[in-house]
């Protein structure tokens, strides 16, 4: 039996953890390595590090930070932000990342998904999809959620799956930073129609939101930042809550 995963996300800028509300205002929430180790001890199932400024400023991601994190923590972690080539990925995996996530670069050149899956295996290729509900349609956004595309979110998810993605990290821009709950409908649509795991992201504010992500949203994992960083929802408490609700988690 596979347990549902809880994944704290550490948004990184200049080697520090930050969290943007709707990706705009940014607050400083600590040292990533320290925070990562604390999360691992609290029972986080995985961690995700997103270099939120990498794509925009065309910076390469944080090989050095990855190396430090890999030394300190013994749970799996994913690194994303600004990754656009096989070479970028090779460097991050070699530094100790378990998975990488790509976003804008995959939209720009979908073949990248295939190249990475072939070179490193699907299991380490996460495709992050930022989506927003625009004109009655869930649409893909790129560049940290700033740039709209004309791509339908569901069609894009199916495409990256067929190209070899191992997992989808679905962030709803509608919900992100609002703490009003995950976007359950689009999460369920993807999760029920894809053969790869879907991580729900964006909007976690209460324990109930997490439970809904798994029950109504059918997600395989739920990712959040602020509620964990600022201690609103301690992970052990969250997992106990989910367990009592009949959701199988690693306690």
């Amino acid at each position, binding site marked *: *039996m*596979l*347990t*549902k*995963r809880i994944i704290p996300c550490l948004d990184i800028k200049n080697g520090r953890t930050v969290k943007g509300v709707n990706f705009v205002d940014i607050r400083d929430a600590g040292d990533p390595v320290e925070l990562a180790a604390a999360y*691992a001890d609290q029972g986080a*199932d995985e961690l995700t590090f997103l270099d939120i400024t990498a794509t925009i400023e065309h910076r390469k991601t944080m090989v050095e930070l990855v*190396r430090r994190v*890999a*030394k300190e923590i*013994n*749970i*799996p972690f994913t690194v994303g932000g600004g990754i656009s080539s096989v070479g970028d990925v*090779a460097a991050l*995996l*070699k*530094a*100790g*990342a*378990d998975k990488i996530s790509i976003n804008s670069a995959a939209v720009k050149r979908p073949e990248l998904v295939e190249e990475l899956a072939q070179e*490193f*295996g*699907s*299991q380490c290729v996460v495709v992050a999809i930022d989506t927003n509900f625009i004109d009655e349609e869930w649409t893909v956004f790129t560049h940290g959620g700033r740039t709209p595309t004309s791509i339908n979110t569901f069609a894009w998810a199916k495409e990256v799956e067929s190209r070899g993605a*191992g*997992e989808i990290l679905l962030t709803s821009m509608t919900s992100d930073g609002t703490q009003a709950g995950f976007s359950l409908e689009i999460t369920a649509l993807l999760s029920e129609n894809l*053969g*790869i*795991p879907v991580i729900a992201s964006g909007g976690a504010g209460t324990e109930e939101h997490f439970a809904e992500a798994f029950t109504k949203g059918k997600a*395989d*994992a739920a990712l959040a930042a602020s509620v964990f960083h600022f201690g609103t929802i301690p992970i052990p408490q969250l997992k106990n809550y989910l367990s009592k609700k009949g959701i199988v988690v*690693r306690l």
Partner: protein
Amino acid sequence: MITIIDYGLGNLASIKNMLKRIGVKSIITDDPEKIAAAEKLILPGVGAFEMGMNYIREKGLLDVMNQRVLEDKIPVLGICLGMQLLSRHSEEGDAEGLGWIEGDTIKFDFEPSKNLKIPHMGWSEISQEHSSQLMHEMYEDPRFYFVHSYHVVCDDPEDVLLSVDYGMKVTCGVEKGNIMGVQFHPEKSHKFGMKLLSNFANNY
């Protein structure tokens, strides 16, 4: 001292780091001479089956690995892909393995109605099929982190040490004398994984 075999497929530092944490020295190498002098081997788990086997052959490691493991009987632990390499053959790349364990590596194949995702990715509880020093004083209900699309099927049920329920009973640990393998990643499985690595380091 544990010798971690480098077959050119990415990150091995996490295993080395976890061993260091539990006070065990290790080296990462693809040098046949160092492997000839090894006391204990870890076959790590990154990459594709065929690439791993090709690397072992190209670097001239196959003979010395066979010598140390089959003749000299030093303890070896295969992790994830490393466990699959212990088998005779894998459907991944239709490639021949080390053949140290009687069994084959096959791909998960589920009816769509089962709604089971591949790879099997995440934390799962496992069951132990018989007693083993590898699981000595293990925490209650141990859970380990898995990422795999292929799994080993043993000919001899006696070789199966651990299993996990994923659509069916799946072998996720083997032990045959000095040859051991686990399908999950102990180096990513927090306290459970540290305990297993420490058992491998100290009890064999």
